[in-house]
């Protein structure tokens, strides 16, 4: 390329750049970068320097510098003009919502549950979902053919291997692992029930607490349960126990939590409470660990006693957040739902 040709190209590019500056809405800093960008006309034209002879390079180089200065002048004049004139700052422009990642409701609940129990010294565990008959039933004092075995509601993988329908298998596994009390476990994991319904899912999560030491009594079960509900649901909530039956606890209890609307009275301003009807909502099952189960876990029932409970993660989520009363909804893939956490 000759110096002449290069000069002409540069001149054209310069004019173009000056016109662009006068029309541009961009900020001064951004403008400068854009104008001198190697892909833009002026930058491209400046690039011609490489194909010139050494002498011509010197001359051309000076022209480039002059051109750059003129462009910079134009830019600063342009910014001043913009600031001075009716360039109005629109305070009402809506903000752009950020797009973030979200932790699932179930993970949050599990983390929260684990945290509450860790205050009391309970250790988080996650025991198998696919279990042998011993850990799932027999070791828990549920012999084969027992009415308490709801075989129709259990998924089988083989005659003696199931998808666990409860997290109580964790009790035996924990006793085997720890060998000596104090044992304070919170086992949170997936459980499976073979039932079809609009509101029940095949798969859900449970959390199982186990507390074994010398001198553990029913009052401790009440204390630990109250601690949980007060921290998870609110300080004004409390639990109560009612008689129930599980093969692996004696005595067994049904644990209720006081209703958040009526506080346990069953009435709101003289009328029946619509949420709970009786003042109490079912939370889940609990009991004092059956001595046979302690023995099966290798713990001496004459020296130690224990209490345990098994509650649903989705259940407490739905009770706390009033997000839905259909458990399946929690497992939706709809990003609009998931983005609410």
């Amino acid at each position: 390329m000759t110096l002449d040709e290069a000069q002409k190209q540069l001149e054209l590019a310069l004019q173009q750049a000056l016109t662009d500056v006068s029309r541009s809405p961009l900020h001064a800093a951004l403008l400068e970068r854009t104008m001198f960008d190697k892909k833009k006309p002026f930058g491209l034209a400046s690039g011609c320097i490489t194909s010139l002879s050494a002498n011509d390079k010197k001359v051309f180089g000076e022209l480039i510098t002059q051109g750059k200065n003129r462009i910079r002048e134009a830019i600063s004049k342009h910014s001043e003009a913009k600031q001075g004139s009716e360039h109005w700052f629109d305070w009402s422009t809506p903000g752009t919502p950020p797009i973030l990642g979200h932790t699932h409701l179930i993970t949050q609940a599990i983390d929260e549950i684990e945290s509450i129990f860790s205050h009391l010294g309970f250790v988080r565990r996650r025991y198998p979902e696919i279990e042998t008959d011993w850990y799932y039933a027999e070791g828990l004092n549920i012999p084969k053919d027992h009415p308490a075995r709801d075989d129709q509601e259990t998924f089988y993988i083989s005659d003696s291997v199931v998808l666990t329908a409860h997290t109580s298998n964790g009790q035996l596994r924990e006793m085997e692992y720890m060998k000596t009390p104090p044992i304070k476990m919170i086992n949170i994991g997936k459980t499976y029930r073979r039932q079809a319904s609009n509101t029940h899912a095949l798969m859900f999560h449970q959390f199982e607490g186990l507390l074994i030491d010398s001198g553990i009594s029913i009052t401790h079960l009440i204390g630990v349960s109250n601690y949980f509900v007060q921290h998870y649901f609110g300080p004004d909530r409390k639990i109560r126990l009612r008689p129930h039956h599980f093969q692996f606890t004696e005595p067994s209890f049904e644990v209720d939590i006081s209703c958040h609307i009526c506080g346990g009275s069953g009435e709101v301003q003289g009328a029946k409470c619509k949420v709970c009807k009786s003042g109490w909502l079912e939370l889940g099952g609990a009991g004092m660990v059956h001595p046979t189960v302690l023995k099966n876990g290798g713990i001496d029932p004459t020296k130690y006693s224990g209490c345990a409970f098994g509650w649903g993660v989705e259940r407490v989520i739905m009770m706390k957040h009033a997000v839905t009363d259909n458990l399946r909804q929690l497992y939706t893939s709809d990003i609009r739902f998931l983005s609410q956490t």
Partner: protein
Amino acid sequence: MDIRISDSSIRKFLKTEASPQILADMLSLSGPTVDTLEPAGNDWIYHIEIITNRADSASAWGVAREAYAILTQNGIHAELSNSPYEHTPKLLGEIPDVAPVSVTITDPTLVPRFCCIAISNVHVSQSPKNILTTLELSGERGINTLVDCTNELTIEYGQPVHIFDLDAISKKTMIVRESKKGETITTLDGQTHILPGGDIVIEDGSGTLIDLCGIMGGENSRVTEKTKNVLLFVQQYEPKHIRKTSLTLQKRTRAAQLFEKHLDAQLVMPVLIEGTKRILERAGGTITSSIVDIYPHPYTPTTITVDLDWLNRFAGITLKKETSCSILRSLGFFVEARDTTLVCTVPSWRQWDCQIKEDIAEEIIRVYGYTHLPSVLPRTEVVVENELSPLKRESALRNLCVRLGYTELYTSSLISKEATSLSDTPISQTITLLNPLSDEYTHMRTSLLPMLTRAIGENIHRTPHPIKLFECGHIYTTTKTHAQPATERITIAFATNRSSYEALRGDIEYILKAFHISYTITAGEGESNALCAGHFATITSDNQPLGYIGKPSLPLAQFAGLTGDDCWIAQLDAHILCEKGNLTYSFSSLATTQTIIEDLTFTFPDKTPIGTVIGALYTQSTDISDITVKDIFNTNYTLTFHYRNTQKNLSSADIAPLRLAIVKLVKETWNGSLVGTLPEIQA
């Protein structure tokens, strides 16, 4: 077991001023749960949930007995009367010494007690209205005076009663045995059943079955208005047999639900007596036989000794000895109070559920009232765990993914066969359910990607923004070890759309670096069910497979409902991260020397792996602190080089030889050429 009992039938046995509402509340707190209390004209219906080990409370008498103990303990006056245990054969007066039927019980273990009596010349009609109402309130309908009587007795005492038309029992023979497979019986409801075998049945000696024991009587021997002579029949059966037959035939009658639990054999005779009396009153007739009572192992009382100190420790409060005694006695236990113990004799109706001292403790404390127990936090030693649990690292992993902008998903562990085919795990290692509920959920997942990718497809029309999803959960494969029935491996998968390979890879590399996991990424080779051949990369760590990143395969894209969208997926063995990962920060001090930055553009031949080039260029000198890809235009790659020496500020003279080495390496190893010339050296 759910039952309905009317208030009036309970009050046949219980005298108290307490209202039905009070009764329901008190029972629920200390005894059987009253789900609802339904008004029914002048009466009320208690809908009660009977727990499996308390069949003794599955009747009006049983509920009254519970209520009596609970009300009195709570200071509400109540009296219990009309106990069936007061009914003895003497009440029937003189009866003939003639057997009504000839009975053979092939296996005594099948029938703990067998009682029957013959009543002749009865007049069968319709029951009066009050009896019909009582039956309806409890969920039964009226049939005729005699059948209604048996149902009434079952409701009142929780002991099923049956009645046969005696003339329909040919040869007056009853053989109680197990059924053979294939035998049939038509039951009272008109249904004909082909028996699986092993069911307890009564055969009349000619091969005809006349009773499906414990579940429902045979149609051929039922009592109608034409019946003149009857056999009143009260018995008990081996519970496991009853349960098995009842579940197999799906015949969940009230009798079956009672018999599959252990009942009180001591109640059989009193109910027979009471039944006989009622039949004579309502249908006339006379007793024409002796009472048949085959009772091979009569009940012998058991005792349980409870240490009072232990009881207080177990309850967590101090219970007065007198209170414990009065509670137990009101429930029907016989108690000998000693200095430090209570020796309790268990009544016959509680022999099945009261066997250990904890059972006695339950009786005392529940009637005393669980609401009276204080709430106490346990004082125990701290359980010491020495290592940072992998679960904590897993939690940190999830949080990191959320910070990187991913939204967490939970999908089902159970997937369809179709979804399984999209995983690279061989079918021989996949776990299948023996009894799935539907075709959608037949296998345990061996990969998180099918359902996660599908979630992308489902969300495309719900949002215009790029979608970033992740799931962290188990995949399941078979194991060979006996101790562990299956391998549950924690895995994490990612799916993005309207994004790029570089973006997803950038996120994953960030995660691996945060966990200080050393890794290598290489070209993915071969075929994959999940990934598009030639469009994926494999990640390994210390020669162990760690995961992969790539484009979904065509079958996976179709499964996910994606059509040409820009979706990238990845899956990592999170177990490795959680076991080996190290989340401690490593800080390095900031450089005090200056960095020189410049761009160099190269042209490469087709299919040059730019990442590999950059990796090699790095090794040229420690003064090269960073190389990034600034721009790619056809085969032109603009790379930004950062030069920095930690000890001194580099000058152009220092950099010149580096540049030459870079250009030389690019040319020699990959046949790449510099575009333009190297910038001149400034003096």
